[in-house]
């Protein structure tokens, strides 16, 4: 039983990490209807910039601030050069454009900072919490809890931004209907720039968290692919969905690996999440919290 709880908790906390990446997707999709395949490389770019600045002896907060500014600028630049010319194109075209963007960002970040993997330390040790392991013999990493805390704060901040501020109202208006938002005088292009900047910020948070966990390396870009089943489960438009979807995917993946894995030779983590998402799609195509689209063929 202890072991089960440990695996479950580990899975849930790993799921939080997926949620962090998935959040970036949701924010952009909500506001512009673009499925941003490049979110993973944004995460990679942010983490690599941050860690490279740290390694050059910069102060932690200074490095964080500079990286944040870089991400915001990058987001605005992407909106300008890639998405503005593609307004009103079908979603598939936009998806393919962001796949192209992925290659550009990956090449760019490796030209700027080199391609060797980096370790990242924030001063929070990735070790089991002592009193938990002593008392109940359950190993839960301190860092995982910290990541969950960060994700919670991030969601709270985003919720306030989306629900309580003037910008948030504009964002939701744009998400609902581009044309109506334009008609009441919301500057669409500013809004999209803001959205991409926020997505850049989320990418930075996700990148730092993943960087501490697995080191900053090229494989980070693949985390984006893991976020896809999370999105399908949670729905593309829901911030809460990204969190819940992440938790479900993380937990089911770990449980499957531990309990089913031995029967089929292990390594099923690479595809199990997708199959869960796929089965889920057949039952509920719009996801747990997604907007219901009546679209029968």
């Amino acid at each position, binding site marked *: 039983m202890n072991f089960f709880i440990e695996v479950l908790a580990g899975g849930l906390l790993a799921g939080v990490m997926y949620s962090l990446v998935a959040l970036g997707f949701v924010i952009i999709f909500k506001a512009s209807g673009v*499925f941003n395949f490049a979110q993973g490389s944004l995460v990679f770019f942010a983490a690599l910039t941050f860690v490279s600045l740290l390694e050059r002896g910069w102060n932690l907060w200074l490095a964080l601030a500079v990286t944040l500014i870089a991400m915001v600028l990058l987001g605005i630049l992407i909106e300008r*050069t*890639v998405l503005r*010319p*593609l307004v009103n*194109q079908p*979603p*598939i*075209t936009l*998806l*393919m*454009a962001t*796949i*192209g*963007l*992925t*290659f*550009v*960002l*990956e*090449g*760019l970040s*490796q*030209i700027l900072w*080199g*391609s060797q993997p980096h370790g990242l330390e924030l001063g929070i040790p990735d070790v089991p919490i002592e009193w938990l392991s002593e008392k109940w013999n359950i190993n839960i990493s301190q860092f995982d809890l910290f990541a969950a805390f960060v994700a919670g704060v991030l969601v709270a901040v985003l919720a306030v931004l989306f629900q309580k501020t003037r910008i948030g109202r504009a964002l939701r208006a744009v998400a609902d209907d581009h044309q109506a938002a334009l008609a009441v005088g919301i500057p669409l292009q500013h809004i999209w720039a803001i959205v991409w900047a926020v997505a850049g910020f989320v990418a930075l948070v996700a990148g730092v968290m993943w960087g501490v966990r697995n080191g900053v390396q090229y494989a980070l870009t693949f985390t984006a*692919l893991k976020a*896809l*089943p999370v999105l*399908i489960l949670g729905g*593309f438009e829901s911030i809460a969905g990204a969190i819940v979807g992440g938790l479900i995917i993380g937990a089911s993946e770990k449980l499957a690996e531990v309990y089913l894995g031995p029967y*089929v*030779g*292990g*390594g*099923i983590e*690479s*595809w199990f999440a*997708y*199959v869960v*998402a*796929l089965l889920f*799609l*057949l039952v509920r*195509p719009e996801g747990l919290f997604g907007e219901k689209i009546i679209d029968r*063929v």
Partner: protein
Amino acid sequence: MLYREAGQFKSTYAEDQQIFPILQDRVAMAALLVVAFVVVPLIGNQYWLSAILTPFLVLALATLGLNILTGYAGQLSLGTAAFMAVGAFMAYNAMLRIPHMPILGAFIIGGLCAAAVGVVFGLPSLRIKGLYLAVATLACQFFVLWAINRIGWFSNHSSSGVISAQRIEILGFPVEHSQGKYLLTLSIVAVMALAAKNLMRSETGRAFMAIRDMDVAASVIGIPMMKTKLLAFAISSFYCGVAGALYAFCYLGTVEPEAFTLDLSFRVLFMVIIGGVGSILGSFLGAAFITLFPIFLNIATKSLETALGIEISHALVSNAEAIIFGGLIIFFLIVEPNGLARLWQITKEKLRLWPFPH
């Protein structure tokens, strides 16, 4: 000779419906085939034949397969490499396990198995589309590679995972040299391209396009949605499967899962976009562009190095290549969403009018 159809009268339906209605096109195509089948093997050196032209043809076939699915039937797929892997491994196993298996039969078996896998992973397309379907095909990509890696039967329990493909023999003649492999690939690709061209002009192809353009309208006019979508997946995967078998047998010489990563899926998708979505010719143009482009870039950096007297690191070149690739994708999507095939079409329209401006 001026390039236009004026004066070329059609007196039978067959003449009216031929693939190249203009005489000059037919002559050009025949000349192209003669060059490809006779001149190139005679004058091409081994490097060009085995390292450039063969992979170009194989990838063109895979692109053709994806184009049938994405370009004609409108179902986005990110699992091309998985279908290719199924084709390659099943062709290998057919050669291994069935005595006296002719190589072409093995290729066909590989293609058919890929088609079966394609149908299974195409099933979600009946309920979902667009982005969601892309994720479903992504699942196929990861699942198939995992299965091939883990299940020993596929690789005949080879410990390294890298197995060398069997020797190719056709009617008792061994196909060993780069010329032979090139000619074999070329023949298969030519036949399948012709088949695809004709298929897309037939009722099936038009049903695909109807579904791509508007699925509700298509089902209203009586196109069976399930059958047509699954057929699109099957045909597309068959092409990809044969391409995968050719990739392993004629180009790599080995059968290994590492050759069929997600990266390859993306590359094939890029070939479709750059070449032209929904165009047979575009598949070849896109494949040629993406195969030749790194070589061109290599030559460019070499000459830049000698001209400036500096050394450019290999990592920089490969990263620059990624940036330029990605940039080109975005550029094409913005400027010419219909790709190189559309540019060719515009050129042809200009040629018809030449030398008059209108």
